[in-house]
């Protein structure tokens, strides 16, 4: 038993933190926030050069072949820095879907491009309101072409390709859904940017009109792949959330030490201290759930579905809690555009929804716990 990352993994974390603090300071995040660029291209290239984009991609497909624990470590740092790049859509969603379901040829085609930063990918799953559910998928696949509308699609406007969930049967059962890879730069695809509360990460609406699609994995098994991809992404995203929560806590703590009111640092008032202590508690519980999730993910353990849901819920709550109370500790200054607090608040609330909302995962967790209990 060892419930911690190895020294090598911690070293990788330090490296990623150092790289991101230099290459992705709040000023760089603000370039995207203020609409000057759709994402930070220089940072994206830099991440590729550092080997971070392909850290969990096997060497034979152009990656570093390190593994998912290493990817967890990087994910935490991406979240801390609020990196304005399509990392989660490309690495956690598109690459994982291809790793799980792709043919050797598809892996050879896409994974090296992902690892080198030459291809941005995403997962096109949602169609308006609601959570991941086969019932909500209306986009159809017939005769090698897709028709219908997906929204929101994270990073859809900058992505080169998308893994798309589509209906291949008419009964509405899980076995009627399949996955496809669609080249978003090809004909029959229209992409429209949508505004959203996290201005550092784009969302899009994608309309398919007889868009050419290449099957990914076996027809009729799409939903099972989606579930696996979402579980993996839930753990990885939870690490991003814990990174964000920790940073928000740190910002609140630092401000409480520096800011003087009523002749004392505000951090000496119990009301403020207790708020920060509670932030620490929620971030710590989330981190511990994430560690269990990381282990389940890296060993592909049967516990992954339950561990992923627990990590997701706990990290979503922690990031929202810390981001919200960081503003509260900052008082009026926290509510200004100039201070960085709102960037974390925006991100916390946006990432809480991207893989299915909190209530969706709560439901999933109890389902999974019941199944385990019954087994």
């Amino acid at each position, binding site marked *: *038993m*060892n*419930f*911690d*990352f*190895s020294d090598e*993994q911690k070293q990788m974390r330090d490296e990623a933190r150092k790289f991101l603090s230099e290459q992705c300071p709040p000023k760089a995040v603000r370039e995207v926030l203020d609409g000057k660029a759709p994402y930070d291209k220089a940072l994206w290239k830099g991440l590729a050069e550092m080997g971070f984009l392909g850290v969990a991609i096997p060497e034979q497909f152009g990656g570093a072949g390190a593994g998912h*624990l290493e990817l967890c470590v990087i994910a935490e740092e991406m979240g801390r820095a609020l990196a304005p790049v399509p990392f989660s859509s490309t690495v956690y969603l598109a690459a994982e879907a291809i790793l799980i379901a792709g043919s050797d040829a598809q892996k050879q085609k896409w994974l090296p491009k992902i690892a080198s930063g030459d291809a941005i990918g995403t997962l096109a799953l949602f169609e308006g309101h609601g959570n991941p559910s086969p019932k909500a998928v209306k986009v159809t696949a017939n005769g090698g072409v897709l028709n219908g509308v997906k929204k929101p699609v994270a990073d859809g406007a900058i992505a080169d390709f998308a893994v798309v969930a589509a209906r291949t049967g008419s009964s509405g059962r899980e076995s009627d859904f399949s996955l496809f890879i669609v080249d978003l730069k090809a004909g029959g695809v229209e992409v429209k940017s949508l505004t959203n509360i996290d201005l550092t990460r784009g969302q899009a609406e994608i309309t398919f009109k007889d868009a050419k699609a290449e099957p990914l994995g076996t027809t009729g098994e799409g939903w099972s792949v989606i579930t696996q991809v979402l579980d993996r992404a839930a753990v990885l995203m939870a690490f991003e959330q814990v990174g964000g929560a920790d940073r928000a*806590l740190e910002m609140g*703590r630092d401000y*409480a*030490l520096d800011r003087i009111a009523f002749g*004392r*640092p505000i*951090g*000496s008032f*119990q009301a*403020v*201290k*207790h708020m*920060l*202590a*509670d932030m*620490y*508690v929620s971030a*710590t*519980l*989330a981190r*511990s*759930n994430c*560690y*269990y999730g*990381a*282990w389940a993910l*890296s060993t592909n353990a049967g516990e992954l579905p339950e561990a992923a*849901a*627990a990590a997701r*819920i*706990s990290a979503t*709550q922690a990031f929202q809690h810390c981001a919200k109370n960081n503003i509260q500790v900052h008082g009026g200054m926290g509510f200004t555009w100039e201070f960085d607090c709102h960037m974390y608040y925006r991100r916390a609330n946006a990432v809480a929804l991207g893989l299915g909302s909190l*209530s969706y*995962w*709560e*439901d999933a*967790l*109890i389902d999974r*716990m*019941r199944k385990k*209990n019954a087994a």
Partner: protein
Amino acid sequence: MNFDDTPQEGAFRAEAKAWIAANAPKQYEEELRKASLGRFQLKGANILEVAKAWQKKKADAGWACLHWPKEYGGRGSSPIERVIWQQEEGPFGRLSSMFIIGHGMCGPTMMAFAGEEQKRSYLPPLASGEKIWCQLFSEPAGGSDVAGLRTRAEKHGDEWVINGQKIWTSGAHYSDYGILLTRTDPDVPKHKGLTMFFLDMKSPGVEVRPIKQASGASDFNEVYFTDVRIPDSQRLGTVNDGWNVSLTTLMNERMSIGAGVSTGFPELFDFCNSLMLEDGPAIENRAVRSKLANWAVKASGLKYTSMRAISALSKGERPGPENSIGKLVAGSMIQDVAAYALDLQGAAGALSGIEDAEVAGKFQAMLLRAPGTRVEGGTDEIMRNIIAERVLGLPGDIRVDKDVPFNKIPTKGRN
């Protein structure tokens, strides 16, 4: 990151499992499984005797106080082996509740400050459960403010004479020995005039009076000292250095991690699985599921937080103040969980008798005991202060009594 046993850990687990299967008092297993915070009964048996017998059996076979050195009655085990033992001991571990203070706090304090001969004579019977120890710190005037205590110790030749009163002393009514924090110099600021001793609870002048708690049970006591004489050889640490000695005790309290703090969640989850509401099973109700999920991740978060702490310990790191999280989270959680279990039952939730209540009144007992959990060993507020000050590095509260001699500190809020 590895949640599986290493081969050595697996071998240790198998050995522990086999020994427990062959030796545990299985006739009480079912009742022990049903035990919960606030309710602990063994029908037709004296709990103290059953507990002592189990502890003695463990000690004789080398399974008591696993992490203590062998010469003091332990096994010299690693923190992880201790966790494996606790996992395997399962419900039988509940029999250890009366030994927790002795094993977790008094023993380690003796190890740090008693003489070698004393350690060899007092520690093995403590490990084996033959002697039970309590901790005499809290006082009516000094609850969270431990250093505000007033029990006096005055030197008379080779002896100290103790006068005063302690309160909230768990298990004093069945304890054989205690560690005692006293004031030896009232003319200096409060933290600087304390001294620690250990004593025989049967000493003349010691009077133990059980306190009836809000829950109706009596686990705690008031202890009165009238001219109690303690030889100077039973002093722990130097005169007036008792505060530092007590910090060692409290630091060791944090080492008692891994026992798995009670959150009430497993009980609630089972209950919701079996409870039928008007519109179907409780577990299928959306609102119920949301509540359960929220508590589920707190419970698992605590579990893995303690596993992380144990990993750190086993690499030789000291237990840090971050371990204050367990009691802080579990204390209020168990209170909320119990209240929710009653809420789900509607009007009948108020019924608490073993015959009338669902799950034999388990949740009602939990609810009534929970306020104590949030206070004992440091209130929620003190736990938050510890996290804020020692983990996050925020400034301490302004202390108006810090440099004031103890006997000049005001004793009343309003005149």
